[in-house]
């Protein structure tokens, strides 16, 4: 391990490893960061939180040296150092793992780990593949990662393994010692198991004395991991506190500037009419699912990554073929295409916002009204722009969308607000059945609360919801019952009331009775 400059934990160092202060940055008059300070101590995980647009991204870009700050003071172990270029950042010892991993899919794991540095040579020119692969395997082994063949193309690996490759690559960069790691939403695309493995690696780095700046929206992770938390709001420092000095409610208040809206107590109302009934359902990936879905109910679907959650939702959307069993809807047979599904009041919020959800170049209005064009149209298929704008405006208001103009391209909104547009699209037709595939992925706390409120409103109005989420707390908070899948099979259907994250995880892993690690 190269992160060796700081002393071991326990013997408290006298000064922070890296101290930023007086950091200000404006973009053409708009203040992105205003007099922000941040200390990174060796052997500490420092969480950075804030809503989308609070200034986290700018802070990270400044740290990486890609965006020069207007004013900044940087001290490395008490000594003033410059930070205005990526080279400065590297010299300080900062290493970055961005949301979008810089992995070249066609290259092997080993090549990715050695990317940008000369590979070991034989005879001065031929790449020494065995040595390259051995070095890569050693780098991975430092994280306790085994089972990744360094010769595999990186594109074949899951997100979790890619994250490990990226981290290994950072550690392998030997020019300057890696002192501090900046992880930007590292678990956004990871499964629970992959996240758990990443946390173990982070713990290892911390014990070796590295400083970790951990940027995340996920409250549970922050509570579990961090030794210190800094919250930004509107470009200003809203709060910074060591472990013990913050709690969940306090963090939310600091981020949003308002107290957490207490979730309205779920009324254990009598279930409504049966909306859908599955019996012995089987497809290529799903086996033997039997459940009913009632009006006014949220049915959560939980499981490890690719346990079949998405496939189940897609089945209701008219995709996939039934191999056995039946899926009956109150409105008739199962739709045979997404077009039919939407026409029958089934709405869908996809998992991959960029790939499956938004049309980034199209306006908020166009994105919102797309499935409802026929309902809004005049007689011979003529579009009615004013009705379209009215619909978009109504939903933007209801979901508290932050936007400048309804005709601005959706791609110019923050991630959370893009997600709200997808919700607006789904909600616009007052759907009988809402299919939500991990609907708050990478969404900040405020937007998340607005989305949750919209889901609850739909349920209160008699709609049914089929929900998956990688955030177990969210699943528990929203669902009435939870369907648990493992490898496409139904392993349980339990009421959410009285269940906690540990209990749910135990069910997912099939360790009922044992306490699962959150």
């Amino acid at each position: 391990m190269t992160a060796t400059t700081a002393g071991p934990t326990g013997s408290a160092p006298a000064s922070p490893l890296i101290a930023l202060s007086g950091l200000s940055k404006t973009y053409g008059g708009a203040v992105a960061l205003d007099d922000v300070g941040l200390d990174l101590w060796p052997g500490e995980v420092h969480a950075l939180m804030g809503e989308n647009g609070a200034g986290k991204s700018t802070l990270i870009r400044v740290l990486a040296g890609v965006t020069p700050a207007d004013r900044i003071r940087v001290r490395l172990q008490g000594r003033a150092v410059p930070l205005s270029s990526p080279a400065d950042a590297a010299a300080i010892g900062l290493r970055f793992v961005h949301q979008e991993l810089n992995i070249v899919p066609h290259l092997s794991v080993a090549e990715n780990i050695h990317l940008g540095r000369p590979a070991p040579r034989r005879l001065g020119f031929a790449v020494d593949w065995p040595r390259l692969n051995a070095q890569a395997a050693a780098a991975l082994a430092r994280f306790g990662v085994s089972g990744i063949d360094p010769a595999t193309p990186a594109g074949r690996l899951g997100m979790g393994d890619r994250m490990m490759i990226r981290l290994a690559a950072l550690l392998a960069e030997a020019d300057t010692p890696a002192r501090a790691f900046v992880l930007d939403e590292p678990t956004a695309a990871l499964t629970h198991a992959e996240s758990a493995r990443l946390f173990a690696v982070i713990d290892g780095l911390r014990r070796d004395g590295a400083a970790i700046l951990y940027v995340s929206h996920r409250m549970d992770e922050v509570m579990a991991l961090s030794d210190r938390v800094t919250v930004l709001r509107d470009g200003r420092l809203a709060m910074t506190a060591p472990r013990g000095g913050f709690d969940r409610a306090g963090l939310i208040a600091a981020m949003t500037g308002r107290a957490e809206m207490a979730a309205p107590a779920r009324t254990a109302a009598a279930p409504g009419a049966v909306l859908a009934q599955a019996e012995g359902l089987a497809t290529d990936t799903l086996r033997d699912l039997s459940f009913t879905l009632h009006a006014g109910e949220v049915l959560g679907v939980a499981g490890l990554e690719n346990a079949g959650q998405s496939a189940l939702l897609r089945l209701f959307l008219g995709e996939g073929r039934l191999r056995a069993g039946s899926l009956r809807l109150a409105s008739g047979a199962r739709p045979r295409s997404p077009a039919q599904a939407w026409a029958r009041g089934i709405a869908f919020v996809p998992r991959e916002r960029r790939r499956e959800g938004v049309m980034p170049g199209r306006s908020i209005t166009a994105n919102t009204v797309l499935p409802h064009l026929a309902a809004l149209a005049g007689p011979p298929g003529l579009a009615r722009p004013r009705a379209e704008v009215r619909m978009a405006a109504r939903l933007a208001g209801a979901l508290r969308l932050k936007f400048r103009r309804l005709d601005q391209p959706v791609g110019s909104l923050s991630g959370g607000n893009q997600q709200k547009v997808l919700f607006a699209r789904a909600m616009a037709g007052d759907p009988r059945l809402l299919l939500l595939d991990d609907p708050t992925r990478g969404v900040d706390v405020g937007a998340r609360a607005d989305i949750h409120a919209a889901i609850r409103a739909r349920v209160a109005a008699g709609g049914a919801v089929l929900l998956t989420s990688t955030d177990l707390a969210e699943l528990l908070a929203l669902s009435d019952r939870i369907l648990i899948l493992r490898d496409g099979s139904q392993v349980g259907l339990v009421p959410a009331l009285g269940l906690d994250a540990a209990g749910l995880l135990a069910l997912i892993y099939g360790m009922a009775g044992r306490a699962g690690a959150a």
Partner: protein
Amino acid sequence: MIWLRRYGTLAGLAAIVLFFSVMLPETFLTLRNLGNIGQQVSMLAVVAFAMTVVMVMGDFDLSVGAMASLSGVVAAVLFVHGWPVPLALAAALAVGVIGGILNGVLVAVVGILPFVATLGTLTMFGGAASLVSDGRTIFGRDIPEAFSGFAKGTVPGLGLPALTAVALAVLALVWVLLEQTTWGRRLYAIGGNAEAARLAGVRVIRLRIQAFALTGLGAAAAGLMYAARVASANPTQGNGLMLDAIAAVFLGMTMNEEGAPRVLATLVGVLILAVLDNGLTQMSVDSYVREILVGAIILAAVGMAGLGGLARR
């Protein structure tokens, strides 16, 4: 900056018109010359408007030129066989729709990239045109006066050349379809993100086939206009329309922020190409130099639009 991006190309057209008006004060801005331009551009305009329909979805149709040749030849061969003019024209237009559907099926159902699929059909249509015509030019007495006379005619009362009137009618039709109907909205949605549109209930496959069919129909119509204008049909005469049509759509795409094709913007692109051809010929600029200039101006327009976008970031 947005201003430059949006209106730079239009300003370019204005500048070109201004330039020729100054250089050719006697002849350029005359009713007669403008009428000429309107007539000269009509076939390219129809192909470009039709091309806009598929480019809205982010697709391409390289087969439009070959289809224009094919439809002209089909009509001419049917004339030779003594078919009445309206029937022969209907058959030629039907060939356009069928060819377009073939393109649509290859792209939307079989899943071949539009570039490759329409490159294949381009070759097929070209071969079919040679086969149907025996590789010959059909002209003279075989082309009925009722057909070729149309291209020389004007709209009664308006003095508008008939071919220009057809182009304007196609423009109006495509504009209504793309800008005023839910059908057009869905096409733009496919262009914005096809998978997202599909999951949001847009029948992507059906729409793509319909759009390609419409483009095929437009190409066939342009081929008939061409055949009427030259009072003859040969199996390669429309081939040159394809690249100019794509260039016109690209010129038009420089005119909006999202870089999405708009049919009125395509019209500006078409006019730029036509005005340059007309004016430079009148100034006796060598035809090869003219080609180099036209290419350079296309690149300049698209390049400036690109720079405008870059500067906004």
